[in-house]
């Protein structure tokens, strides 16, 4: 009898408690309601939900809030690209201009054999440590080659090949983790207006004489490119810079051929997805290299 009574009273007591707290929370929910913009969850749904933080905000929800509050641009999500930007713009009711995916390029194309004055280094094998030590190679601007950027990539899109980072643009989402990881700040996100983008693959600001002492492929600041393409190239501090605002989708091999031919250091390099014929060549090389 006592057992049944206990069970009944246990049910009653818990029912009272549950009812009390449910009522309390129900009232509190109404009284303490915070008006949230209905567009915020809509924007969250439109985002890729990768939560990578590539936009500079703490995850997709934070970015959605920032977009609705006009603290971030519609096309601020580097992973979603123009598709997401269009969806977000539709939710917010604004016009979006054509956007291009921002992808990292490396302002150094020196392979291990191109670097001069490389000394044996037995310290901690990371770029950040080697950068602090400072004397592992003669060039104080270029890639150190220990692969901090490759380690920072969570999409397996960046690998060290022959002492320099190579981006797999099929896998790359443009989250910018490699940009932050590089202690020498030679990785930059540029708008990929074409499949391949021409990039000044050097960051050395020393005069030509000094550059030639430390690297075989360094930009010597000869201004040859600037003379041919004055509005696109700009040489300051002995280093050529590309003006990506003027880099249009129409520019192609025909326009760049003379520049590439003139560049004495071969410091102008195409970055991006390999062209079809080049991709075929790579695949053939892979096939040949694979032991049967």
């Amino acid at each position: 009898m006592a057992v049944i009574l206990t069970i009944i009273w246990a049910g009653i007591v818990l029912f009272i408690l549950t009812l009390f707290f449910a009522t309390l929370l129900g009232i509190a929910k109404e009284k303490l309601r915070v008006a949230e913009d209905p567009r915020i969850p809509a924007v969250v749904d439109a985002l890729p939900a990768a939560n990578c933080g590539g936009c500079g905000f703490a995850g997709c929800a934070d970015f959605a809030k920032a977009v609705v509050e006009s603290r971030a641009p519609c096309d601020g999500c580097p992973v979603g690209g123009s598709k997401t930007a269009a969806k977000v713009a539709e939710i917010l009711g604004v016009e979006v201009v054509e956007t291009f995916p921002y992808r990292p390029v490396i302002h150094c194309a020196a392979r291990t054999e191109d670097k001069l004055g490389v000394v044996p280094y037995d310290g901690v094998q990371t770029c950040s440590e080697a950068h602090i030590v400072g004397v592992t190679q003669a060039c104080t601007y270029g890639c150190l080659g220990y692969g901090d950027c490759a380690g920072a990539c969570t999409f397996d899109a960046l690998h060290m090949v022959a002492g320099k980072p190579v981006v797999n643009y099929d896998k790359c989402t443009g989250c910018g983790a490699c940009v932050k990881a590089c202690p020498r700040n030679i990785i930059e996100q540029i708008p990929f207006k074409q499949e391949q983008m021409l990039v000044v693959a050097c960051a050395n600001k020393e005069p030509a004489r000094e550059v030639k002492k430390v690297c075989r492929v360094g930009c010597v600041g000869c201004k040859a490119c600037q003379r041919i393409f004055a509005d696109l190239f700009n040489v300051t501090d002995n280093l050529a810079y590309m003006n990506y605002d003027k880099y249009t989708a129409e520019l192609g091999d025909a326009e760049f051929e003379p520049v590439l031919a003139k560049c004495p250091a071969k410091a102008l390099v195409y970055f991006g997805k390999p062209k079809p014929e080049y991709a075929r060549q790579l695949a053939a090389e892979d096939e040949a290299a694979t032991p049967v």
Partner: protein
Amino acid sequence: MSIGALIGIFLGVALVNNLVLAGFLGICPFLGVSRKVDMAFGMGCAVTFVITVSGVVTWLIVHGLLAPIGSAIFGPEHAGALFFLKYVAFIMVIASMVQLVEMYLRKFFPPLYTAFGVFLPLITTNCAILGTCLYIDMKPETQYLLNAAVYAFGGGIGFTLAITIMAGIREHIRFSDVPKAFQGAGITLLVAGILALAFSGFAGIGK
């Protein structure tokens, strides 16, 4: 009940019987949220707040609901007949309190709400809080509401102290040359153990 007794209770639970380092409760946030001092301190503050409120409310439930109903139905000698409901009732109280605190902060202190972030909902399943509420019910010195409140507050302060010290040490470990075998979780658990040993030195006071 004197002020001295209250101080004794506070120091006893904050230092001597520290929830984390002597009771081994709340290890999950102690290891999970102790990477940075500011985050650890935020977590500690959130726990302290919820632990104090929950401690008071659960004391009221035991002494104002379970005990009177038990003695009214089964007679005064069986006042504890319904005490087996403590566990499920306490969890409900803690979950409700966390929800309530979250809503309240969101409405009136948005910066604090943003600062707490995900820690506040995480506290719902923090065993340190349930443990404190159950301890309060067991200890003879917490038969008064004020004592129970001080006990719960002391527990929260002890948790904050432990997790903040841990975060401070871990911030330094990041720049230390830790042997490869100990890196990561290994050195963290070693530090926690040594910290617990150090806190056992408090066992002499309060006696």
